[in-house]
């Protein structure tokens, strides 16, 4: 029995490593290309490990101003996240504590998350043309805020329900208005959930492609759109694709690594409390 267990563990360990290698290999390959010289990128057979790590591919992006798209993504994702968190948490509080609108309202809010972007983006585009919001920060910020609100409301509702009601009642008796209770009790009590939800909201806005593809031209191009600009019919700008992708992906990896605790709850729309 014991020896069996030991053998089983070894086998499982080997399998686990193999699976992990398979899933990480694409990311490894992307990272390696970003550090390769042109000769290494276009070597046949492919070079599995570059001779030396060099940052020339990144330097080009900085020199040409391509990294501005990272800045655009940063502005749009940050502002839309802040807006969505603030409005969404207010709404979530109302639903969680007063059952405002009943189940119907809560379900309606979530159903807006399920609409395919392509269905939304077309009328929005025509509206934005009228408003002059195409290729502006405000256009994408408003759209991302709207698209993220259902998620924020749904998640924050769950986190707020976890707060003991007595804390709020105590504050009411102690002399707080409803709004003060929200600001002084709910907000700090929901800190963990707020932070986690904000990160996932940010990640969505940061990664989003189709809205950005349609609603940006050149002024506020976000980094995912920029990456597709490097695709060519026959040959790709390999080094740029890889380096730009890395610039846009590594920060997300770090952010999510910091909140492993909230990860499962965050991606399962709160279905699993983890």
């Amino acid at each position, binding site marked *: 029995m014991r020896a069996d267990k030991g053998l089983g563990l070894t086998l499982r360990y080997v399998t*686990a490593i193999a699976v992990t290698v398979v*899933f*990480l*290999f*694409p*990311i490894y*390959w*992307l990272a390696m*290309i970003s550090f390769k010289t042109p000769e290494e990128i276009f070597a046949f*057979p492919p070079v599995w490990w570059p001779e030396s790590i060099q940052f020339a591919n990144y330097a080009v992006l900085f020199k040409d101003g391509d990294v501005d798209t990272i800045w655009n993504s940063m502005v749009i994702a940050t502002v839309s996240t802040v807006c969505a968190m603030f*409005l969404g948490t*207010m*709404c979530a509080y*109302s639903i969680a504590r*007063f*059952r*405002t*609108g009943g189940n119907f309202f809560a379900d309606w*809010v979530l*159903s*807006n998350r*399920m*609409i*395919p972007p*392509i*269905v*939304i983006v*077309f*009328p*929005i585009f*025509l*509206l934005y043309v009228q408003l002059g919001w195409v290729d502006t920060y405000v256009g994408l910020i408003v759209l991302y805020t709207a*698209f993220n*609100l259902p998620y924020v*409301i749904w998640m924050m509702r769950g986190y707020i329900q976890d707060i003991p009601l007595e804390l*709020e009642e105590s504050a009411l008796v102690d002399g707080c208005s*409803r709004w003060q209770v*929200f600001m002084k009790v709910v907000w700090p009590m929901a800190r963990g959930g707020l932070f986690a939800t904000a990160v996932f909201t940010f*990640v969505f806005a940061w*990664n989003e*492609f*189709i809205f950005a593809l349609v609603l940006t031209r050149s002024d506020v191009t976000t980094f*995912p759109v920029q*990456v*597709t600009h490097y*695709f060519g019919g026959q040959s790709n700008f390999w080094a740029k*694709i*890889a380096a730009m*992708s890395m610039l846009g*992906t590594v920060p*997300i*990896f770090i952010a*999510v690594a910091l909140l*492993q605790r909230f990860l*499962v709850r965050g*991606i*399962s*729309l709160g*279905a*699993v409390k983890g």
Partner: protein
Amino acid sequence: MNSGGATGETVAGPGGPALLTRASQAADRNFKYWMIFPAVLVILLIGLFPVIYTLIVSTQNLTMMDEDTTFHGLMHYRALLEDARFWESLLHTFIFVVVALPAELIFGLAMAYLFLERLPGRQIFVALLVLPVITSPIIAGATWRLLFDNRFGPINQILGWFAGEPVPILWTVDPNFVYPAILIAEIWQWTPFMFLLLLAALSNVDQSQIEAAELDGAGFWRTFTRIVLPAIWPVMAIAVLIRALDLFRLFDVIWALTRGGPGTSTETISIYAYVLGFQQFETSYTSAMAFLVIVILAVSITLILRRMEIDR
């Protein structure tokens, strides 16, 4: 909590205090509506405006050339029914859903079982395996574009080792390989999503129930179907629902790998709508299609949710 409902009507004391109390009560009663108001306003931008707008425009005849806003009835819907490309795009979407979804579910479940029991360094494995999920789908597509390159990509190279000779597959061009290519990329990105949720669900299954079943002589399969599956079903159902909806709107990965090609052979609903609306500027026709998609989706979501309610 104060639910803002009916209050004692016997009060109405004379003089000052009554005024004050009335005012403060009213403020409290409306508080909950003030709290949802701004969010609802913003959500309507995506939740109501597009539905109404596409419905209206779909009955007109707007194109790039023509600003014809007269009523044309269901003309575009009729055209849509006869549009083979539309039905094919629906079929392509369907293929991606029915192949990728079970594959992600089964691989995810297998991986969850692999990591279910104590394994040294499990946290690190899980942390690494989550990376594909949080990568931007368009970046994931771009990455696989590089991996699938027929000459400089590692995939053909690795296949070559097994074949014993160079393998020159044109993954993103050859009609026989575009579907596997897209599916591999899609499954690679989202299997860890299933894995994470199922691992959490499996960890929450009451261990004593499983042990009791094993003592009763139930085999793995019996234990799984009778005890484990019912226990993880709620989470699994939600995971499947989330993924099904994502796959239905599949766009980014295909955009990066094939742009719907070769020809229109990998064109999904989303890709076709994009091409129609933003490359051919068939405003009214695209609106009709968008509205139809909303209807299809609304109906199927309602049915699925009702089915899940019943199962529970």
